[in-house]
């Protein structure tokens, strides 16, 4: 949209400072570009944050391939794939929420933010179920840890399987923590959207939160194959 056509829409109850251009910016467009770049820089730090865990995963998987293959077969493939689908759906609804914010459909912004919230909640609930399942099967590293295959036999190289489960809980836990933060921000965005705060001229929070939500989706897109899929079919020699 050209900045020419940006008119302050009749957003009832919107405080005047919203959509206001701070004095150090030339215009609203520059202000928005600066905000977007700032969000991306934050996401770069998040990439490096998760990157350290991914590195730990690769290094230990390389060191103990048999233990990792054996332990990763104890994740539930169907639940993992279904939950991945749920998260992808939530990314779609989030993208649509941003889309409707950009074209100024207030009710649809609220609707799609709520759908995103529900799908995010579904993902977290399924994750909680998986954690519980691992807890009752003694697959949480620590006291009483015991890795067993479907047949009840001990996992191959069982002594090193706690490494896999530590990384499993560490990585999915950090991911889930990001989702929980996201759910909190979504609740805030929904209340603001209901008040009509977000307009085609100014909906930066919706858009930047969209970037965050999609980033969290991308992290899961890599966690899913690494923790659930690899070595599903065969044990390494």
């Amino acid at each position: 949209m050209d900045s020419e056509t940006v008119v302050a829409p009749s957003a009832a109850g919107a405080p005047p400072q919203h959509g206001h251009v701070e004095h150090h910016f030339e215009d609203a467009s520059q202000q928005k570009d600066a905000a977007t770049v700032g969000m991306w820089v934050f996401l770069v730090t998040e990439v490096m944050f998760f990157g350290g865990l991914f590195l730990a995963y690769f290094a230990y998987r390389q060191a103990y391939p048999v233990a990792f293959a054996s332990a990763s077969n104890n994740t539930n493939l169907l639940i993992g794939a279904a939950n991945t689908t749920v998260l992808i759906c939530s990314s779609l609804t989030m993208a649509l929420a941003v889309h409707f914010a950009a074209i100024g459909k207030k009710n649809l912004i609220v609707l799609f933010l709520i759908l995103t919230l529900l799908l995010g909640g579904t993902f977290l609930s399924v994750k909680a179920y998986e954690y519980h399942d691992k807890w009752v099967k003694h697959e949480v590293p620590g006291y009483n840890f015991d890795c067993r295959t479907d047949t009840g036999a001990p996992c191959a190289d069982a002594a090193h399987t706690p490494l896999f489960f530590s990384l499993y809980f560490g990585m999915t836990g950090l991911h889930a923590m990001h989702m929980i933060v996201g759910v909190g921000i979504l609740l805030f965005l929904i209340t603001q959207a209901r008040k009509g705060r977000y307009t085609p001229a100014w909906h930066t929070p919706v858009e930047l939160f969209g970037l965050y939500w999609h980033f969290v989706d991308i992290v899961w897109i890599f966690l899913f194959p690494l923790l659930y899929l690899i070595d599903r079919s065969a044990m390494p020699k």
Partner: protein
Amino acid sequence: MPNHEKSAEHHVVPKRIYFGVFFALVVLTWVTTYVSTIDLGRWNIFVALAIAIFKASLVALFFMHVFYSARLTKMIVTAAIFWLTLLLFITMADFWTRGWMGVPGR
């Protein structure tokens, strides 16, 4: 009128692109899940990661609007991928090759 470079913020992406990307992501999720049950030997990890990288690229380019973004944003994204690649590959190059020679004391 200020004459700014066109960027994602001023560009409304058509809805059909979102639906197309969504469809591709869901199909690829189930494809990669199915492929994981087939024994490809050491290639399983490469296929799984290639599909994951492709899916992540779709999300970044279209859901996150990188495809339509200003050059500065594209540069920041590229820098992130570059440094992550350095982190992973240089460290793993060490771990992969350390056992290749019988170093005494190892």
